[in-house]
């Protein structure tokens, strides 16, 4: 049985997750990441954490899995500072759903 969760990204960010029983897949470039995501999705992994650096480079792949409930591909910050990719996505979703960003307008 495949592991239920996986983490993809730079080795620094990802290896720690292997201590928690996640399937840690250190990757360096977007192409490998896409391939790994594809493999994991086929194997039935439910949650895939992707570091922001990688997630930024593979919007199409993220889009492809957006319509189905699993796998959930979630960007996570790596290293010291979050790039705010996750919040940006959330903001986009809000804009898509409501037509205008009325929730986070003040902060953004």
């Amino acid at each position, binding site marked *: 049985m495949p592991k*239920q*969760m996986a983490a993809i990204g730079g*080795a*620094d*960010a990802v*290896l*720690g*997750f*292997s*201590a*928690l*029983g*996640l399937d840690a897949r250190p990757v360096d470039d977007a192409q490998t990441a896409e391939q790994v995501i594809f493999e994991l999705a086929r194997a039935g992994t*439910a*949650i895939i*954490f992707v570091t922001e650096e990688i997630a930024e480079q593979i919007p199409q792949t993220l889009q492809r899995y*957006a*319509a189905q*409930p*699993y796998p*959930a591909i*979630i960007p*996570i*910050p*790596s*290293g*010291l*500072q*979050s790039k705010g990719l*996750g*919040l940006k*996505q*959330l903001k986009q*979703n*809000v804009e*898509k*759903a*409501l*037509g205008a960003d009325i*929730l*986070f307008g003040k902060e953004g």
Partner: protein
Amino acid sequence: MAGLGNIKPTRMELSRLKKRRVTAVRGHKLLKDKRDEMIRRFVVMARENKALREQVEARLSGALSEFMLARAVMSDAAMEQALMVPAREVTLSFSTQNVMSVNVPSISVESISNVDGGVPYGFAFTSPELDGAIETLAELLPELIRLAEAEKACSMLADEIEKTRRRVNALEYVMIPQIEESIRIITMKLSENERSNQTRLMKTKDMLAARDAAMMAAQAK
């Protein structure tokens, strides 16, 4: 607006269109209600999602930078050895939850086993930063899972809201006006036919009456 293109001005077509209008109006009302309710739920979810994400990001960055430090201090081999056995074994159960006919994931943590003491390795060959990092990550894991669930649900719901809104607008601004225009055209055409028939009849009657009068006059002479 030109209505639904080429339509036959018949009574049958008219009653068909009227039925379609009723269906369209009912569908429009239902979809509008669905959209409103989805937006209400979405707003709640999005707020929660935002709070979760901010919380997770703040703590995760901390844990990962600690981990980076540990990696810098320890050799790769020692690191690999230390992380070979997972510190926690997490069992999750997955299902889907139906929120306004959108199937969003619903993930619950069934069990988190705690390998005794929290870390699966001896303390002799590892750096203390690693202990801290793993501790924080382990604490964070349930929240990460909740974040994954919330984020996915939010994005799926947003897609669905957009679709529903398009449908509502298409019905309201295209479909229903077109049907109404067609109904108007047919009614006008039908009453025009009716009138022309009426006039024709009256005219014929007049002509017949005039002929009869002429014949009567001729006989009288």
